[in-house]
């Protein structure tokens, strides 16, 4: 520890700290722009110049290492003179457009200019003009003259986002922040650049000119979009969500959120919102109904099914971003009706997955632990797209030497150094893990053959002391998920590491805890598809795009009496008989349990749109009308507590209890590789217009490697017809040499590819 004095107050900080850190320790604010605690130090804005005794010049607090006995003055005449001089320089070329600047009211430059600026400028020359840039649908760089060249956005891209999409070109006054010629910003974390920008140079394009910061009420919430459970501040004007920004939680999302968390609120205000209950008449026409009529109709229908078809003909389906409370009541409802058929993992293919584990699959460690691992094997995940903030943590870990091995089918660049990578067809994930397990056993004491990718991976993984095997969304939704997990367990055991599941949804862990999976006598979705039921209650889901085999699932629902509890009309109107408008996460209280098993409750931040009501209330009233017992909860908290009290953490468990089976041999023919693109994961984000304009959401192409294209006698860029057992689509072919042989990558969760059905389908591809 180093002891020093700042403004007369003694403080002691670890060696290697900067004066800025010591000042923060003391709660002394040193004005700054370029310094950001999560980014490298640039020392370029010079705003944090402070006086250090015995130093001839004022020194930047952010880049001056503390020394024993150092005496620092942050507001002496010399320090303030330097700070005021820098402020004057910052302002001379900064436009005086605060009244029309989106950052006005929350601008660091504006705030600090009150303290350090002059009321009138001495600068009488012409101001600099900086040309605006179009950097894509999310970030506005229309007023780059406001930029003060702090390079926080550049450093964010390089260090946190993992990709340098913004850079500073030019010299001196002509230096400008810009993308590479004509490129847009496509990082899935790009919105954080807006947050780190201390001025109004980078602003949110969707939010632009829609509200002033002081008009907004700020309410806390939790993101429903991925299993991180990012803490959010939802900013609200009237009954509308205007903007979403991160709430800092070092253990969960640090100070970042993904672009999906940030901009999917646009889906909340979509035209497609279902605002009143609706009943489909016998003439197949949808008619608005009162809540009373709709709920009564729903209850009568369910009663009638039980009467005429016998008990056990009602199924319930929900999504992995339904709240604990909703899923708990859905379970109670369907069980109260005498059925055990319930599922919320709509992309699951392995009917035996939940019985293969001894508990609820979870990350197996705290999220923050990802930074401390030294060897990581990630299996079957488009990590950067499925879990951008987990990828971000691994990126930081990789900087400090963590070696990461990937086994997947995608070949996507995770934007961190990959120590070894094996790209195989989805059917071969288990077999590859089996080989890896054998290599680990064989290698003990022996020299690895570095030319063999499996041996190389084994050697890397075996050399760690704090390692983990993480199973991604593809691994879990694969038809042989239990087997993949069993072999992954063997590998984890072989390297003395933990086994973890990245988990797909915001409440995947919570769904298991809430009992939204079928028990012994019940059927999960894969089984229901084999044995269709007579009635379904469907919560939040948009089956065509949310289910693994959307076409088949939708057909099953359309052939039964289906009641949809949905915020969006078009998600249900093609297959439901009754649509009940339920609230998305912003309009209801609820709880999500994230990947690390952290239960985070939130309140509604705005009133329900139209007549929509929180899902848990709708289910509760439906239970009352059906005269079911145990539907007396007055608040969401009591429902949550019933699920989560008594140490739910003990129910988490990743131990695979089934033995690994001999993995399947690769099928002859072409295997589909299907990712769920980052902005296609749930009904809300699919309706967020700006996100849908990004390249990640363009109409998918058919991607194959050169060898596969050649073997099929096709050519890059042509239109091809792709057929599966469910249907066929015509799309453009694109060569993608990161893929394995005989695999065809076609994204899931698009209207244009829904006809192909399962993400694991066998395909044929031919010229049109």
């Amino acid at each position, binding site marked *: 520890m180093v002891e020093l004095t700042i403004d007369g107050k003694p403080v002691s900080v670890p060696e290697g700290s900067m004066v800025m850190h010591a000042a923060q320790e003391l709660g002394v604010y040193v004005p700054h722009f370029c310094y950001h605690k999560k980014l490298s130090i640039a020392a370029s804005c010079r705003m944090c110049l402070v006086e250090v005794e015995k130093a*001839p010049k004022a020194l930047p607090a952010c880049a001056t290492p503390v020394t024993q006995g150092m005496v620092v003055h942050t507001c002496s005449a010399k320090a303030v003179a330097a700070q005021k001089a820098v402020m004057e320089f910052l302002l001379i070329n900064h436009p005086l457009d605060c009244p029309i600047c989106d950052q006005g009211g929350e601008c660091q430059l504006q705030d600090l200019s009150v303290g350090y600026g002059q009321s009138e400028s001495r600068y009488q020359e012409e101001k600099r003009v900086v040309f605006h840039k179009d950097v894509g649908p999310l970030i506005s760089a229309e007023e780059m003259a406001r930029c003060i060249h702090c390079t926080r956005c550049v450093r964010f891209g390089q260090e946190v986002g993992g990709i340098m999409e913004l850079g500073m070109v030019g010299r001196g*006054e002509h*230096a400008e922040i810009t993308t590479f010629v004509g490129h847009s910003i496509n990082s899935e974390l790009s919105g954080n650049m807006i947050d780190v920008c201390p001025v109004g140079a980078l602003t949110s394009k969707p939010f632009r000119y829609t509200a002033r910061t002081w008009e907004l009420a700020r309410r806390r919430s939790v993101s429903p979009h991925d299993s991180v459970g990012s803490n959010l501040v939802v900013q609200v004007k009237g009954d509308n969500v205007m903007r979403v920004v991160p709430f800092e939680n070092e253990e969960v999302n640090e100070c970042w959120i993904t672009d999906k968390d940030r901009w999917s609120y646009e889906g909340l205000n979509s035209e497609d919102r279902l605002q009143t209950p609706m009943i489909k008449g016998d003439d197949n026409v949808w008619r608005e109904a009162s809540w009373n009529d709709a709920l009564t109709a729903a209850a009568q229908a369910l009663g009638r099914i039980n009467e005429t078809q016998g008990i056990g003909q009602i199924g319930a389906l929900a999504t992995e971003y339904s709240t604990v409370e909703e899923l708990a009541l859905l379970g109670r409802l369907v069980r109260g009706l005498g059925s055990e058929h319930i599922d919320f993992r709509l992309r699951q293919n392995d009917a035996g997955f939940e019985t293969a584990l001894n508990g609820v699959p979870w990350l197996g460690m705290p999220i923050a632990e990802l930074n401390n691992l030294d060897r990581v094997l990630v299996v079957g995940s488009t990590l950067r797209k499925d879990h951008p903030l987990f990828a971000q943590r691994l990126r930081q870990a990789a900087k400090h030497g963590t070696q990461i091995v990937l086994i997947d089918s995608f070949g996507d660049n995770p934007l961190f150094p990959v120590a070894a990578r094996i790209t195989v067809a989805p059917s071969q994930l288990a077999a590859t893990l089996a080989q890896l397990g054998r290599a680990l056993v064989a290698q003990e004491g022996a020299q690895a053959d570095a030319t063999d990718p499996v041996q190389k991976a084994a050697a890397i993984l075996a050399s760690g002391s704090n390692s983990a095997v993480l199973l991604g969304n593809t691994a879990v939704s694969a038809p042989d998920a239990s087997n993949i997990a069993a072999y992954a367990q063997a590998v984890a055991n072989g390297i003395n590491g933990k086994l973890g599941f990245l988990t797909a949804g915001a409440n995947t862990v919570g769904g298991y805890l809430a009992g939204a999976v079928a028990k012994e006598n019940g059927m999960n979705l894969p089984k229901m598809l084999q044995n269709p039921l007579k009635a379904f209650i469907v919560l939040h889901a948009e089956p065509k795009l949310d289910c693994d085999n959307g076409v088949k699932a939708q057909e099953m629902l359309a052939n039964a009496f289906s009641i949809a509890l949905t915020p969006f009309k078009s998600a249900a109107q093609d297959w439901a008989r009754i649509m009940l408008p339920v609230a998305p996460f912003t309009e209801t209280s609820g709880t999500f349990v994230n990947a690390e098993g952290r239960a985070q409750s939130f309140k509604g931040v705005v009133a329900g749109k139209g007549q929509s009501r929180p899902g848990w209330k709708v289910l509760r009233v439906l239970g009352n009308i059906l005269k079911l017992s145990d539907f007396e909860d007055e608040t969401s908290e009591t429902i949550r507590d019933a699920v989560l009290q008594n140490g739910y953490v003990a129910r988490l468990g990743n131990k695979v209890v089934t033995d690994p089976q001999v993995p399947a041999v690769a099928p002859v023919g072409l295997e589909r590789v299907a990712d769920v693109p980052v902005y296609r994961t749930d009904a809300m984000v699919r309706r967020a217009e700006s996100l849908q304009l990004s390249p990640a959401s363009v109409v998918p192409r058919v991607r194959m490697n050169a060898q596969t294209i050649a073997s099929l006698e096709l050519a890059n860029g042509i239109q091809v017809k792709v057929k599966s057992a469910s249907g066929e689509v015509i799309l453009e072919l694109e060569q993608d040499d990161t893929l394995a042989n005989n695999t065809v990558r076609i994204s899931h969760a698009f209207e244009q590819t829904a006809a192909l059905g399962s993400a694991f389908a066998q395909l044929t591809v031919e010229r049109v």
Partner: protein
Amino acid sequence: MSFLDKYSHGLIANPGNDLSNSMALHGRHIKPQILDGINGENWHLEDYVKRGGYEALRKILTTGLSQEDVIAEIKASGLRGRGGAGFPTGLKWSFMPRTFPGQKYLVCNSDEGEPGTFKDRDILRFNPHAVIEGMAIGAYAMGISVGYNYIHGEVFEIYKRFEEALEEARKAGFLGDNILGSSFSFQLHAHHGYGAYICGEETALLESLEGKKGQPRFKPPFPASFGLYGKPSTINNTETFAAVPWIIRNGGQQYLEVGKPNNGGTKLFSITGDVERPGTYEIPLGTPFATLLELAGGMRNGRKLKAVIPGGSSAPVLPADIMMDCTMDYDSIAKAGSMLGSGAVTVMDESRCMVKSLLRLSYFYFEESCGQCTPCREGTGWLYRIVNRIENGQGRPEDLDMLDTVAGNIMGRTICALGDAAAMPVRGFLKHYRDEFAHHIEHKQCVVPHYL
């Protein structure tokens, strides 16, 4: 003939077959060490060896002179960095963690971009092996195995010549593995910049050498602990390295005696401006300015000396009377309120308008600021615009004080010395020629009559 060959300085050493017209080979040096015996053609290795070249390196490697001995010799010589700051070279070399086990680098700064400076160009042009030998000696003294010479982008043919010289030295066994049969190995590479002035700043040079945008790094950490590719590195000027072989051959004490105490050896001065014979002149430190002016043929057309910028464009200007009392060494010029810098002496006669002169300098710094830190990025443009207004008859009375405070606000608050370099000339010109600026503002025209 390539575009570069045609329009850059070219390699014609003796224009019109008259060496006395040459910029460097005129023979009017005093006790030259680096440019001794140079005729423009004899830059090859064999010529250098004939002049006693590589003897110093051989002496070190064959007589078993230790690293400490070499550094002690350099310390004794009083050699100070020739790039501008004048930091004692021996001291700098002793900062290098010699026993550090990892990779270390030696870098030669030949990115000579200061307006009016062209001494390094002439050294690399006419005596490149002196630099190579000096670097090899430095590498030996600091236990370094890899070196780079970063050569200014505008003098491409110099880069090509240096590459040729490197090849000669490698073939002769003065570079590479096990030099002269010893256990000492040193790989030296040439690298050329692309013409940004800021890349002459040592840390910006390192960034540029690494393939990044040339922007200075904040110090600390200094290059001696965190330099090229994050490894301990020593960076010296071309002329500094070129001076080293002579010191080892003849002894540090003798080198010191050539100059003045604390200002050892000779120095190359690049004289430009209103003199009869502009060019490079090698003279012992401590030689009176009057002598140097005489060597350069005196004032052009016999005009009266008005002002001198004694150490490159960033040095404050000195009026004639102060300058004529100075001797050309670090301490004397510093005492007079300027600095010896890189030794670029810009001589101005009575026909020179001080406002216009400053305008040219301010424009240079405005264009060459890297844009990284605020005071320099914003301040250099401000300074330039004010001076530009004054020169063009739109000055305001308050401009003079404003120039002074803006320059003062830049100084000492930037990452690198470019901010100071931009501010110092402004303050220097204002200090000595305030009247001329005031005249410009009041009368909207120059104090220098048109007929001059």
